[in-house]
């Protein structure tokens, strides 16, 4: 009875996932560009702290994106395995 509704919800959720994944890539690319700009500006006028902060920022962004695309699907698989039947 509820299966057609669930299929509709899952279709919307899949679209939302694809949208958010795309948005995450765009934000990460913009962030990467910003940090590269910050790093080159720091190098240009000898701001070593600015450059090192920019490098750390880029590494952090890469870690966040990898976390989203590798860890979250694993969490989903794990929860899917735990999905219980009705306990009543």
């Amino acid at each position, binding site marked *: 009875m509820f*299966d057609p509704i669930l299929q509709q919800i899952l279709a919307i959720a899949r679209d939302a996932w694809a949208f958010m994944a795309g948005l*995450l890539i765009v934000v990460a690319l913009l962030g990467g560009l910003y940090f590269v700009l910050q790093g080159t500006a720091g190098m240009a006028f000898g701001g070593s702290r600015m450059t090192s902060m920019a490098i750390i920022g880029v590494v952090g962004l890469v870690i966040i994106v990898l976390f989203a695309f590798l860890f979250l699907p694993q969490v*989903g698989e794990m929860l899917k395995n735990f999905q219980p039947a009705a306990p*009543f």
Partner: protein
Amino acid sequence: MNEAASLVLAFLREAWLALAGAFLAFVLLAGIAQVLRVSSASMLGANLWVWESVSALLSIVMIGLFAFLGIPQIVSALQSSLPGAGGCGPISELGTFASALIGGLAALRMLKATFISVLSASIGGASSFSHALIECAEAIFGMILASAAIPLAAWFLGTC
């Protein structure tokens, strides 16, 4: 009465399956929404926002584990404590029907509470873990109350 109970329980079981499927989808959406927040906050240099999102992500995983591992165990434990009415006649049948219905409704209510908190996290809001726990506690308290009320009602109405 038994047929009516099995019909209602089958309806509730289907609702449980649909809600669990939607819950799983929204856990993942909430997760990616919080990661998106973390990435944009780290780009802006908003430390507090990053920590808020990291804690929201952790609470989403906690809610997911609680919903899929904790709620079925709680419902099974409480349902075994609910007495099917002793005695005979319509009171007994009504008691059995009521205890089955109370268990099903409480399970669905607890899953719905966790679903709503994950839904709010998936649209970028704070994941209201405490609200979900409060609603679960209310459902548990209701079941405990019902486990005392059913034998009392049977006693008042008279059992054979």
